[in-house]
């Protein structure tokens, strides 16, 4: 099908004929100074905070600081093209980004401009970037599980739809990997995913996009990129823009998952803006409202009431700590805002325990509500048991003689730790997780040598998938661990043990 040029010409002619000839009324100001992504403007006397303004060459900005005699504007675009004395006009609207089905599968900048070379985003709908989060009456408790596909997380710190679960840890501890696995696991669940890369190296973002594409996750994922070379205003805005796109699906009654990778970089961008705007610095030179910057963002994740369609927006913010310092300003802020955190530790990571989750201080405040019954049954006391095992393990390293009960606890613990290890990009189905965890927590793995636990798990799951797939099917549909299913799993385990060459 082709469009001929006459047709387009006639469309344009019709547009010109219908052009409403009105006097253009605008409020203007003059650029006093410009640099570092911000501009100070004289005039714009009735501009409102957060209002969009336009510079002569079509670059937009946001009124950020309203001072007595001037307005501080953050520039969303190339500030090198703006000059002193340029006319700035206020647009009388809030910053909005394109939303809708058209953004899915795309790589966009925080203003919704495509970065993937796949042409313009075909959508007519827009949503304001900054909106007030849903109120108390519009929400309902988080009960529905949001499976991440990672055994350790789904068993011990379950995430529910509408929850905010922080992923926190030093550099190179697998924070992004956890988030990417969670995105991969949303395949065929109808959950739309959004990955917001803030202040990241463009090379690592390219790797993430590549991984998402390879595993078929780009069909339901949008990537919003403001890399390390993007101006600070764009880095600051990226999470809000991504949330606006995700909220579209939430208010449509669908489910969305958003990953902010990472909010420490956003806080740094915000600090830069605030300091350039001469807002007074506070702790660690962050401005006083850096808490509000994150709280209003994360508050927008919600599980909506059934009246509003019951949609949800789950967020996985990421925070990078320095040398495990969780008591720094931004980590404590975000820890207190979110409904739990997954704490990743470098020493565990290097000991080969991946995901390197420290179960002792990782929590999910939504807890068992976000687990299906069967998972609750197999993973009930797992977190506390593992935490106790860590203490015991430290004690056992002293080389003292141990009584048999303690030794048994240790044996179980070693096997549990081994079982919770999981390869990257291999999220597991919840039914399979339940079978594995059942085998371990009920002590069925005690005869298997520790280094063979994962091989055995694989053999067991393969055998069940091949010979008795109804077990998995029953768990998926019934969501409960009935005595019959338990019996079936037990038989499968003993069958597998018989055939398993240790």
């Amino acid at each position: 099908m082709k469009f001929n040029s006459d047709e387009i010409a006639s469309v344009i002619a019709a547009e010109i004929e219908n052009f409403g000839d009105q006097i253009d009324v605008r409020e203007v100001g003059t650029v006093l100074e410009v640099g570092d992504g911000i501009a100070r403007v004289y005039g714009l006397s009735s501009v409102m905070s957060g209002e969009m303004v336009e510079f002569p060459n079509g670059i937009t900005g946001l009124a950020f600081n309203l001072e007595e005699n001037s307005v501080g504007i953050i520039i969303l675009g190339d500030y090198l093209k703006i000059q002193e004395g340029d006319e700035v006009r206020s647009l009388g609207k809030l910053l909005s980004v394109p939303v809708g089905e058209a953004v899915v599968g795309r790589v966009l900048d925080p203003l919704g401009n495509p970065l993937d070379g796949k042409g313009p985003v075909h959508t007519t709908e827009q949503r304001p970037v900054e909106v007030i989060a849903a109120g108390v009456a519009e929400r309902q408790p988080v009960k529905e599980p949001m499976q991440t596909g990672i055994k350790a997380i789904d068993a011990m710190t379950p995430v529910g739809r509408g929850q905010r679960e922080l992923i926190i840890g030093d550099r190179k501890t697998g924070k992004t990997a956890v988030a990417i696995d969670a995105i991969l696991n949303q395949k065929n669940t109808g959950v739309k995913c959004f990955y917001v890369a803030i202040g990241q190296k463009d090379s690592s973002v390219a790797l993430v996009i590549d991984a998402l594409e390879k595993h078929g996750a780009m069909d339901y994922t949008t990537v919003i990129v403001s890399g390390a070379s993007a101006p600070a205003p764009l880095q600051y805005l990226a999470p809000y823009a991504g949330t606006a796109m995700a909220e579209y699906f939430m208010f449509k009654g669908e489910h969305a998952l958003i990953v902010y990778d990472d909010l420490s970089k956003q806080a740094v961008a915000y600090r830069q803006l605030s300091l350039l705007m001469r807002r007074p610095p506070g702790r660690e030179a962050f401005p006083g409202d850096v808490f509000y910057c994150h709280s209003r963002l994360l508050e927008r994740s919600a599980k909506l009431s059934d009246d509003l369609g019951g949609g949800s927006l789950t967020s996985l913010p990421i925070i990078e700590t320095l040398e495990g310092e969780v008591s720094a300003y931004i980590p404590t802020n975000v820890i207190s805002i979110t409904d739990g955190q997954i704490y990743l530790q470098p020493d565990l990571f290097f000991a080969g325990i991946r995901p390197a989750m420290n179960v002792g201080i990782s929590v999910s405040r939504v807890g068992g509500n976000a687990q299906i019954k069967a998972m609750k049954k197999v993973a009930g006391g797992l977190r506390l048991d593992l935490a106790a095992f860590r203490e015991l393990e430290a004690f056992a390293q002293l080389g003292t003689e141990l009584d048999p009960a303690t030794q048994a606890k240790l044996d179980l613990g070693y096997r549990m730790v081994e079982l919770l290890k999981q390869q990257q990009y291999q999220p597991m189905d919840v039914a399979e997780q339940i079978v594995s965890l059942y085998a371990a927590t009920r002590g069925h793995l005690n005869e298997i040598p520790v280094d063979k636990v994962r091989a055995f798990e694989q053999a067991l799951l393969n055998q069940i998938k091949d010979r008795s797939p109804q077990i998995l099917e029953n768990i998926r549909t019934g969501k409960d661990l009935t005595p019959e299913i338990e019996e079936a799993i037990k038989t499968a385990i003993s069958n597998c043990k018989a055939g398993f060459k240790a």
Partner: protein
Amino acid sequence: MQESPQIDTVFDDSEKHIGRVYATALLKVAGKANAVDSTVDEIQSVVNDVLGNSPQLEMVFKNPRIDASAKLNILDRLFGDKLSGVSLKFLKVLASRQRLGSLSSIAKAASQMRDEAVGRLQVKVTTAQAIEPGQMERLRQHLATVFSADVRVRTTVDPAILGGMVVRVGDTVYDASVDGRLRAMQRQTKTNAEASVRRRLAELSL
């Protein structure tokens, strides 16, 4: 009457503040003497006609190393018989406090505050060609009824707007120029035409 100069991009908050403080005092005194307009015009004239034409004098006024008494002498010699009592006294007060350097911002603030007080509006009109005096008067009267204020019109000629006129009141610009309308048309046509082409495409592919 002299007009305040265009908004310049050199911007000094504290200077503006000083300007407002002294201007308030000046207007108060001038009000008592019933000579607000003439006083403000005199100060404006000192800034535009005297200081504007003689940068050396401005440098002398701004120089803090020159004694206040020397500045007072200069003021007496220059303006002693030309300025009214209020204006001259005011300049002397400035000199004794070493604030003569802020004279231009004081003058600007004073004229702004006077305009506000009497409901006078400064309107800047830009046209592509010079306006004839008859048209000018009609325009002034029309603007006066539209804004219901005593309007002072300042005109500039800018051939780049092609035709029509651009009226600026404070920070608000009323753009009825040919250039502005062409731009608006370009913007609107571009978005609407794109949308309707896309709509037709969707219809065709259904």
